[in-house]
Structure formats: structure tokens, C-alpha cells
């Protein structure tokens, strides 16, 4: 009866180009693949072993020439070192935990304060500027006239400057091209924090202040060429511009390239490479390809294109425990299967979509017997560790456990079908390498009846977000995103405040000179120190008169003599104010005359 159902099921599907999987040569293929380099999971498994690989450890002893994996598993069973004497550390950490939290919050407050302080200072300064402007509109200020910004300061992107320089070069404006190449190099170095771009700095100062020794030499070469062209009156030639261009490009793109190289280097050291994870599926993919099947990735399952009428869509294999499906994806996947797709579910039945109606039926057997009933009387037996099985009312069973429970079955769903397999263990590198398992796996997958299989990756079960923001929110990073946005805003304001265009510097808020003199005079009068004041003023006036080299009249000499004979500790005679006024008048009148 089962054979008839299965035949009907297979015959009712549209004809397709079918890969003929041959379980009989599966063992040879696996051996060849392992000898060909896909033996990393046995020879040098990932360190530390991933949890899924640890669960496969019992396979290690059953696999031929798999000592690396076996040793890694043995190492797990060794007794861990006794760390009980370190319990005082745990107590210490528990004790200082609250203190650390407080310190952390204080740190956060300090950082926020440091970020906000320039903003506050800018607001205060702006307020003070307005006030000063209102109070003293006619005050003489040392207003710094801001010249037209040069390109390096006006353009913040070094690549744009490079492009502009290349355009100048192509147009034949070589002088301009040279200067713009220099601007690009300076901007790139400025962005890296190696130099600081300022209008008043000379090219030589940039070279001398260049903190990166590797960048200094090319920058010096560029500056030399540019200086000759700009100030030496020697028109630049194509060769010179080409040299400068080369150096500028190296400076602009040097660091990003280095970062890429670094990242690529890091990337290779981070991963263990393909085939090193005992729980991976590299061996399955290679085996299927060797058997003539096309194997690839699905991409996001939620966007899987629906099969067209009369077209044999590729089969899709999903390990639901590794690839969690969100509601939208699940709905689309079921719809896709109903439209004619072949969905291969490999996972414990409790994680399958409820709509499929499969029920968990645990087994005690470690054996799986595959009998596809495709005309061949042959069966294949696999040995597994996990004991998952299920019951499926509408399914046709073609692989059973040793105690006659369903391990794999197939059922129709709309115009398509679903192949259910109770667990993905059989398709892992470690399980496939065990004698007999590869043949059983191929016999199971042969029921898929497609020449192309696409395997879903863990990230494919999530509907692609419509925009980056929703992706972050969906990933639970909404709060973090909010914090990041606030921090970015603060940083923007902070940097913007610093990099703002130069503005006329306000005169420092202070007492006018006359006020200062009056206040000082009043203080000295209160403390009866007018002789001291007279003595000081006398010295000042004499120094100024001498500095001007003008003849000193007799009256002036008398005044100065009176000032000189005043003693700091003497009682005021009463004429100090008069003499000081006369001395002050001498300086003022002469000063005005000079001006």
C-alpha cells in the first residue's frame, strides 16, 4: 500500500530534471572528499568545539581516521581544574558590584558633561557677544577678516578633492591640479588626525607636524612640487603632476587599503575555514555536488520566488532549529510549497510549522532504516545519536527507526510537497563520515526528486527589513539606537562647535582702562597709599618719556623729582593727586600728539 502511495506521489509531480543520487557509491565519494581536503572536522576541528559539535562526540570513535575530533571530545571529559580557592574573588566582585555601577554612572555623567560643555560654552559666548555688541557698538575690535576658504578646508572629502584634481589635470590646468592634489592629501591626513588643517599653517609646517613617519616623506615630496609651482614661478609639467598625483592617491587611499588588508587578515584568522566544524554541512554539500546535484543557498526565505506553472522549482532544505522562521517567512514558505515547491524540513518535529500536523514520537532506537520503495528492494541503515521520530497522518513514510517509528516521510501540500526528516544530525559532517550514514542520507534525499537543492542558512529565516532602522529595532537594538542617536547628536554639536567657521573674536569682557585706574586709585586712597601710587606713576611716565627720546623740560623734571622722592611708607602730603594728574597729562598729551 505504502509503495503504491509513494509511486502515485512521485508520478503525480511534474516531470523535472532529476539528479540521480547513488547511495551505493556514497561511501567512496565521502572517502574521496575527505582525502581531497574536506577532513578538517576530523583532523583539526574548530576550537573550542561548538555545542552542536560536542553533541556529536559519540560519532568520533566510529569514524575512521578521526583522531583530531576524538581527542577534542576526550579533552572535554577531563576534570576541570579546581578553582574553588578563587571563590573569594567572586565574593569580592559581588561586594564591589554596586560601587562599580555608581562609578560607571559617574563616568557616563562626566562623559556627557564633557560633550555638553563646549555647547554650553558656545551658548554663553554667543549670549555675551550679543550683550557686548549692544553695549559697545562702536568699540574698536581686532576683527579677523576671514579669507575665502581654500579647497582643503572647504571640502571635507578627500576623494572629492582627488576627483577634482584629476579633472583639473585632464583639463590641462596643472597648477590648479597640483594644489588640489595637495589639498586632497592634507584633507586625508587631517581626517586621520595626523595633521590639523588651519588657514594660517604653511605647507612646511604641515610636513613638520605630520605625526605619521610613513606619510611625511610623500607629503614632503608633494609640498616641494607644489611650492615650486606656486611660488617658484616654474610652470608644472605633466610628469611632476603625475608624481604628485601618485603620492596624493597613496596618502588618500593608503589607510583605507591598510584597514581592508588588516580586516582581511583578521577575517582569515577568526574563522576556522570550511570543513572544520563537525556539525557543519560542508561534506553534505560536496557529496551532493559530486553526485551531480546543484547545491546553493536560498537567500531570504520570505522572498523566495513562487514556482511557475509547469516549472520544477529547486528543492529547499530548512533546518528549522538552526533557521528560526518568523511568521511572515513561515507563511510565505507554506504558500511556496503549496504553489509547487518541494520543502525539505530537517529538524525535530516539534519545531515544524503546526499547520503540517506532525506529532513528536520519541524513539529509543539509534538506527534508521531507509527504504524508499522506488523499485529497488535495497535498504540503507544509518546510525544516529538523537532519537527523534514523529507521526504524520498524511505523510508517506520512507525511513523508519529501528523500533518502526517514522524518521522521514513525505506528504503533498497543495501542488507541492513536504519532505519531513526528524533531525538534521544525519547531514552533519561527523554523522556523514560514519560508515553507512552517507548512503542512507543520499537515499533519503533521493526522494526530493530535484536536480537542485538550496539550503537555508540561519539568517535566511528572517524577513529582510524594509530599511536599516527597522532592522535594528527588530534586532532589539531600538533603545541602543536611541542612545546612539543622542550620542551622535551630541558629538555632532561638539564637533560642529569646534569646527565652526572663525568668527570675529569679541573683546574680552573687562573693565575699561579708565575704570581700572579709578578703582585702583580709590583703593590706594582708602589705604593712604597715594605716595606709593605717585612713585609708581612717576617711574612709568619717565620710562615713556625716555622711550620717546624727547627732551624733558625743567617743569617735567620737577614733577618727576617729586614723584621719585615720594616714599611708599610716608604719610600723604596732600599734593599727590595734583602731581599725578599733571604727570598723566604729560603722557596723554604727548601720546595724542604722536598719534
Amino acid at each position: 500500500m505504502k509503495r503504491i502511495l509513494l509511486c502515485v506521489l512521485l508520478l503525480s509531480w511534474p516531470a523535472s530534471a532529476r539528479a540521480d543520487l547513488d547511495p551505493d557509491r556514497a561511501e567512496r565519494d565521502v572517502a574521496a572528499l575527505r582525502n581531497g581536503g574536506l577532513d578538517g572536522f576530523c583532523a583539526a576541528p574548530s576550537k573550542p568545539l561548538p555545542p552542536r559539535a560536542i553533541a556529536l562526540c559519540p560519532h568520533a570513535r566510529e569514524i575512521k581516521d578521526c583522531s583530531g575530533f576524538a581527542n577534542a571530545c576526550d579533552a572535554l571529559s577531563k576534570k576541570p581544574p579546581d578553582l574553588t580557592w578563587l571563590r573569594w574573588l567572586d565574593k569580592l566582585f559581588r561586594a564591589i558590584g554596586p560601587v562599580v555601577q555608581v562609578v560607571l554612572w559617574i563616568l557616563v555623567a562626566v562623559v556627557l558633561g564633557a560633550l555638553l560643555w563646549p555647547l554650553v560654552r558656545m551658548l554663553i559666548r554667543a549670549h555675551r557677544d550679543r550683550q557686548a555688541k549692544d553695549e559697545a557698538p562702536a568699540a574698536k575690535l581686532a576683527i579677523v577678516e576671514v579669507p575665502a576658504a581654500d579647497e582643503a578646508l572647504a571640502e571635507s572629502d578627500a576623494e572629492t578633492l582627488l576627483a577634482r584634481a584629476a579633472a583639473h589635470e585632464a583639463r590641462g590646468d596643472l597648477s590648479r591640479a597640483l594644489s588640489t592634489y595637495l589639498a586632497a592629501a592634507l584633507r586625508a591626513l587631517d581626517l586621520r588626525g595626523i595633521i590639523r588643517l588651519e588657514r594660517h599653517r604653511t605647507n612646511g609646517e604641515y610636513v613638520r607636524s605630520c605625526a605619521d613617519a610613513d606619510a611625511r616623506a610623500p607629503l614632503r615630496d608633494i609640498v616641494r612640487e607644489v611650492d615650486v609651482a606656486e611660488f617658484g614661478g616654474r610652470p608644472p609639467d605633466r610628469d611632476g603632476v603625475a608624481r604628485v598625483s601618485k603620492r596624493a592617491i597613496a596618502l588618500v587611499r593608503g589607510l583605507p587599503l591598510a584597514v581592508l588588508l588588516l580586516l582581511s587578515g583578521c577575517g582569515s584568522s577568526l574563522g576556522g575555514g570550511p570543513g572544520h566544524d563537525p556539525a557543519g554541512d560542508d561534506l553534505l554539500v560536496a557529496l551532493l555536488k559530486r553526485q551531480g546535484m546543484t547545491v546553493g543557498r536560498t537567500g531570504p526565505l520570505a522572498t523566495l520566488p513562487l514556482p511557475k506553472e509547469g516549472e520544477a522549482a529547486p528543492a529547499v532544505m530548512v533546518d528549522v532549529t538552526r533557521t528560526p522562521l518568523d511568521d511572515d517567512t513561515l507563511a510565505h514558505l507554506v504558500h511556496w510549497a503549496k504553489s509547487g515547491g518541494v520543502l525539505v524540513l530537517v529538524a525535530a518535529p516539534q519545531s515544524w510549522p503546526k499547520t503540517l500536523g506532525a506529532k513528536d514520537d520519541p524513539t529509543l532506537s539509534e538506527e534508521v532504516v531507509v527504504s524508499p520503495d522506488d523499485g529497488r528492494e535495497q535498504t540503507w541503515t544509518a546510525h544516529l545519536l538523537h532519537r527523534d521520530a514523529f507521526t504524520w497522518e498524511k505523510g508517506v513514510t520512507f525511513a523508519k527507526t529501528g523500533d518502526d517509528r517514522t524518521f522521514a516521510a513525505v506528504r503533498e501540500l497543495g501542488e507541492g510537497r513536504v519532505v519531513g526528516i526528524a533531525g538534521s544530525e544525519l547531514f552533519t559532517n561527523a554523522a556523514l563520515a560514519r560508515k553507512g550514514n552517507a548512503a542512507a542520507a543520499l537515499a533519503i534525499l533521493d526522494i526530493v526528486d530535484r536536480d537542485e537543492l538550496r539550503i537555508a542558512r540561519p539568517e535566511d529565516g528572517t524577513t529582510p527589513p524594509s530599511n536599516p532602522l527597522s532592522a535594528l529595532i527588530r534586532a532589539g537594538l531600538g533603545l541602543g539606537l536611541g542612545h546612539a542617536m543622542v550620542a551622535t547628536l551630541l558629538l555632532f554639536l561638539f564637533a560642529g562647535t569646534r569646527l565652526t567657521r572663525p568668527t570675529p573674536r569679541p573683546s574680552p569682557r573687562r573693565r575699561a582702562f579708565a575704570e581700572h585706574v579709578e578703582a585702583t586709585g580709590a583703593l590706594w586712597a582708602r589705604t593712604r597709599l597715594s605716595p606709593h601710587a605717585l612713585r609708581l606713576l612717576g617711574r612709568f611716565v619717565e620710562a615713556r618719556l625716555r622711550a620717546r627720546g624727547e627732551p624733558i623740560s625743567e617743569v617735567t623734571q620737577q614733577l618727576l623729582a617729586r614723584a621719585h622722592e615720594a616714599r611708599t611708607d610716608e604719610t600723604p602730603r596732600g599734593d599727590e593727586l595734583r602731581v599725578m594728574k599733571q604727570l598723566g597729562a604729560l603722557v596723554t598729551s604727548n601720546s595724542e600728539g604722536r598719534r
Partner: protein
Amino acid sequence: MNETIFSDTWARMQTEIARVVVGQQELVEGLLVGLVARGHVLVEGAPGLGKTLVARALAAASGCSFKRIQFTPDLMPSDVTGSSIFDRDKGAFVFVPGPIFGQLLLADEINRAPAKTQSSLLEAMQERQVTVDGTSRPLPAPFVVIATQNPIESQGTYPLPEAQLDRFLLKLAVEDPPRDVETAIVKNHAHGFDPTDLSLVQQAATAELLLAMQTWAQQIRVDDAIVGYVVDLVRRTREDRAIELGASPRASIALMKAAQVLAAASGRSFVTPDDVKPMAKAVLRHRVMLHPDAQLQGVSADERIDEILRAVPVPRLA
């Protein structure tokens, strides 16, 4: 003369001076700039910082004759310029040249002499000739006055009037040496160095070579953008709020000349802003008069010039 000979001679003179002078590179460079730019140099610094030694070493290295005048309050103009003395044998007045008739004149503590004596130097510095008893006598070429003054003591001194200050191409400030330099100086003396013995210094140039260098430096190209930069810097001293009297156009010329020499010393045939900026303080600091208000606040001329250098953008095409 070409760029290489110029820069080589310059470097050789620096090397020879460095045989007896430890540190003080800025002072040495400033004096060389003054010598080649046909300018006079005012050196301000506390006693004991090696001003006289540097001047003597410069004379030895450059092959110029060296004369020194110690200025005192009772120094008379004729003590500087020389005077006519009756020669009984010849029965006529004979001119006896004063110490000013040297190529490198060290006017030590120039502010100790009264204005009358100081002004006797004016004609010599400006016209490079001395007029005594109605007869003008040219001074040997090259002629450079290196005047020193002590910034600390003011009692019994006669500050140089602005008119005379303006005659100096550069005013160099000599700072206390850093610890390592001072240690090296003391060690040299511990090993028997005698500052009066300059036999270590080899002659690296001649008066004729210096004259050729002076001519070469004048031919160094100054782009219009550089001229504009120099003028902007000097004009800004006249607009600065803290400066009562800014630098004159003579300062612009001096700054340009000094920059030309520095460019030639770098082996270049053209001036860049990098030659102008290092000379700005030395050229301008004695030519600006600070406002009394700024003086009372402790603002220095160097600070204002630094501010001006930061405010004026350097010329750049892009």
C-alpha cells in the same frame, strides 16, 4: 654664486660656529640672516648667555674683521666714530678711525650710552659711512652692527628710540638654554674650553664671498602672493587693538629680505611662506609699540605677533 654654493657656505659657517657655541641655533641663524641681508641685529638677553661669544665666532667663521664697543653712560660719539688728532710731526690733523671701522661691530649694552652717542651710530647703520669734521668716510663692506641690551636692568639706561630701533633688521631674544644644553656648556668648560680662544673656528667664508651671497639673496624670487602675505602681516600690526604703533613699510621690506635669505639658505631660488613666518617675530617685535593698557595686562609683542600670524592665512592657490 649659485644655490648650492650659498647653502653650503651657510651650512659651513653654522658648523664652524657650533664648534664653540653650544645651542643658540636661533641666535646664530638670526645673525647670519642679518649678515647676508645687509641688516643690523639687536640682541636682547640676560648677561652670560653667550651673545658676545656668538658674535666673535661669527666673525671668525665669516672672515670679517671684528670690533667691539662697550657702551657706557660717558661714551662720546667720537669714541665710536673716531676723531681728527693733530699730528705734530706732520703738522696737520690726522683722522684716527674709531672702532666703528670694522666689518662686524659688537655694540655691547647699547642702551647704556646716552641718546647722543646712540644716534652717532644712525648714519653708520643707515648710510654705511661716517662723517667726521665734514668728511664722509665709507665703512668697510660688509658692515653689520650687532647690538646687545639687557632687558632686566633699567636704572641708568637709555632705551633706544623707535627711530633707531627701526634701523635694526632683526631683534633676537636670547632665552636661557635648556638643561641639556647648559650641561653641555658646563662640561665643555670642565674640559678646558676657553671662550677667548677661537682657534677651533675655521674660516668658512670671506668678505668677498659674503658680498656675493648678499647679491644672490637679493635675486631670490618673491612671488606676488608672498609679497601680499608679508604686507598683510605687517599691516595687521597696525590694526591690532593691543598695538598702539604698528610696524612701518620698512618692516615689510625687512621681512621680505630676511625671508629671501632664509630661502637661499634652504637651497631654494624662491621664497615660500615657510621662510616668512620664522622671521616675523624677529623682524616685527621691536617695531611695534604696545598700548599701555596691554602693557599693564602683561601682553608681550611676541604674543601679539603670534596672534597675527594665526589670523593671517598663508597664500595658497587651492
